């Protein structure tokens, strides 16, 4: 998938003779949710909606794929029989609790025998993941996921737990503090220069101030999502500082040589 424009991507697809399926991720929302900052990058998702591997696509090992294929449905959703259309619509809508009940009544043996447990695992994974996001103070991703998780557990015993977790998003002080950290990191990143000229014009004291601030944040939120985001941003700022110092030193040498 790509977050680039169709206008730029389609000629590339045609030129390369690409035959595989692709789609667009407007504004790179999924890419950002996954914290992907370099491409190419791939994620391997199991039949239960869980990411089980991620990395450079050329480093994917067959051993990571084989068990997933064994678990997957033989028949992809777009080839399901017509009588399964309501189940299909319910799953696409993300109403997995309702879908679990419907799946057990399907005429298709594969759907009747495999889909309920598959949906059950999908729900379990979603709830566990949502819980982990809250505990990890990954507040923006948790907020983005909250609606779909609530929909997934509608009519299931997990609904109360999910409602309680969602309530924490609105009233937990640590989560509120984490949200401020992510907003501040976004603000700092928006202030980072995107051209050589802008980088050379940047006030190093300001940059050092950002680094000090984020190092303190990383310590305050150690081993939590905001802390990791702060550390990652410090690494980028440090690279930027090294670049600026080298370039300025080279400029000074050039000027000294020409005098």
């Amino acid at each position, binding site marked *: 998938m*790509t977050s*680039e424009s169709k206008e*730029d*991507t389609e*000629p*590339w*697809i045609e030129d*390369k003779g*690409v*035959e*595989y*399926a*692709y*789609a*667009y*991720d407007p504004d790179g929302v*999924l890419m950002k*949710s996954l914290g*992907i900052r370099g491409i*190419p*990058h*791939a*994620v*391997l998702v*199991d*039949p239960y*909606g*869980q*990411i*089980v*591997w991620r*990395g*450079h*696509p*050329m480093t*994917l*090992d*067959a051993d*990571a*794929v084989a068990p997933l*294929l064994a678990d*997957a*449905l*033989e028949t*992809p*959703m777009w*080839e399901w029989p017509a009588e399964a259309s309501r189940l299909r619509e319910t*799953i*696409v809508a*993300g109403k997995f609790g309702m879908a679990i009940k419907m799946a057990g009544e399907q005429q298709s043996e594969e759907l009747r025998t495999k*889909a309920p447990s*598959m949906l059950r695992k*999908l729900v379990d994974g979603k709830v566990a*993941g*949502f819980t*982990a996001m809250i505990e990890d103070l990954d507040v923006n*991703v948790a907020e*983005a*996921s909250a609606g*779909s998780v609530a929909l997934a557990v509608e009519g299931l015993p997990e609904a109360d737990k999910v409602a309680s977790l969602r309530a924490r998003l609105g009233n937990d002080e640590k989560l509120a503090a984490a949200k401020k950290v992510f907003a501040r990191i976004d603000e700092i990143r928006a202030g980072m220069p995107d051209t050589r000229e802008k980088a050379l014009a940047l006030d190093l004291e300001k940059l050092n101030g950002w680094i000090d601030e984020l190092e303190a944040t990383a310590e305050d939120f150690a081993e939590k999502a905001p802390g990791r985001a702060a550390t990652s941003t410090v690494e980028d700022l440090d690279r930027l500082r090294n670049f600026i110092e080298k370039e300025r030193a080279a400029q000074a040498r050039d000027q000294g040589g020409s005098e």
Partner: protein
Amino acid sequence: MQLSRALLGGVGAASVAVSLSLAGPAPVIDEATPLPPAHLVDFAQSKASSLEEYFGQAVLLEFFAYW
């Protein structure tokens, strides 16, 4: 059964077989995590029109750019 090599690109049109024949490091995540909500649009070269339609399949999502 095939891996749904959906939404791939970036490294060119390398086939699944080529990708999978390369030995690589172990998975870089220790614990499975749910795929965050995704609102992908304009599916092409696929019978699916949303990511949700890959329910029950193993899917490799690759993030690529044309440049």
